[in-house]
């Protein structure tokens, strides 16, 4: 089981979070066309490597976190608040 160090709530069990997919994928511009959106929605590398992903802390602060996790060891290298979202000051 993952234990994710939430910057607002402290270390919490994976079960408190909802996985929201790869965080590297950026939503294309509106006019980018079907191929770009198809890649955004469906195409993933699935690498044996560090993976940047969104986790929504639904049972805690309900904030979106950007987590860098290794897909083989599950080691978590970094967790940060969604960039640009309000509230830069850190919790405990």
């Amino acid at each position, binding site marked *: 089981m993952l234990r994710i160090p939430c910057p607002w709530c402290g270390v*919490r*069990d994976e079960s408190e979070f909802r996985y929201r997919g790869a965080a590297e994928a950026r939503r294309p511009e509106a006019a980018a066309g079907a191929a770009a959106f198809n890649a955004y929605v469906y195409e993933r590398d699935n690498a044996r490597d560090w993976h940047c992903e969104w986790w929504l802390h639904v*049972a*805690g*602060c309900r904030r979106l976190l950007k987590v860098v996790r290794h897909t083989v060891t599950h080691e978590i290298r970094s967790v940060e*608040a969604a960039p640009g979202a*309000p*509230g830069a000051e850190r*919790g*405990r």
Partner: protein
Amino acid sequence: MACAALPADIIELVALRERMQVLKALAARRGLPVPATGWIASGRETLVLCVRPERWLVLTVPAAPGSALAAWQPACAGCAATIELSAGLAALCLTGPAVREVLARGCRLDLHPEVFVPGSAAATSIAQVPVILAALPGGWLLLTPATTAEHFRDWLAATARPFGFATGAGVTVASLAGERAP
């Protein structure tokens, strides 16, 4: 362990984008503490919790319906969203030496007194329902959604039975706030 219902008016204040300092100044003028995320603070007959960044739950002694919101909404225009949650959250006060042992049967957080020190507050889930938990010198404040509150109280009573369970009474926001958190 005893569990008492805590009658309270509850307002949530949420800072609008980049209006945090304005809200803090307003709070300061009105004598409302604004604790950091993960903490509870008490003001005059008021408890303020912060378990979500830039959002504060303000608990006050119950007054006429709508008056708690009316006290804040006009002043907050332009700096904070104000939402009334008095009926949406059930507030409970847990007291007694067995609270930690009982909660450990559903709560995944480390509630050890040196970790979850008095004044700490956290949102988590217990017995499969959302719970906001805060440690005060005089007891534990617990907020849970109204529609699952009965389920939660049933779970609490059943879980606490081996430790001795009683329904408490007479707890107010004022009495809890009076014991000032550090």
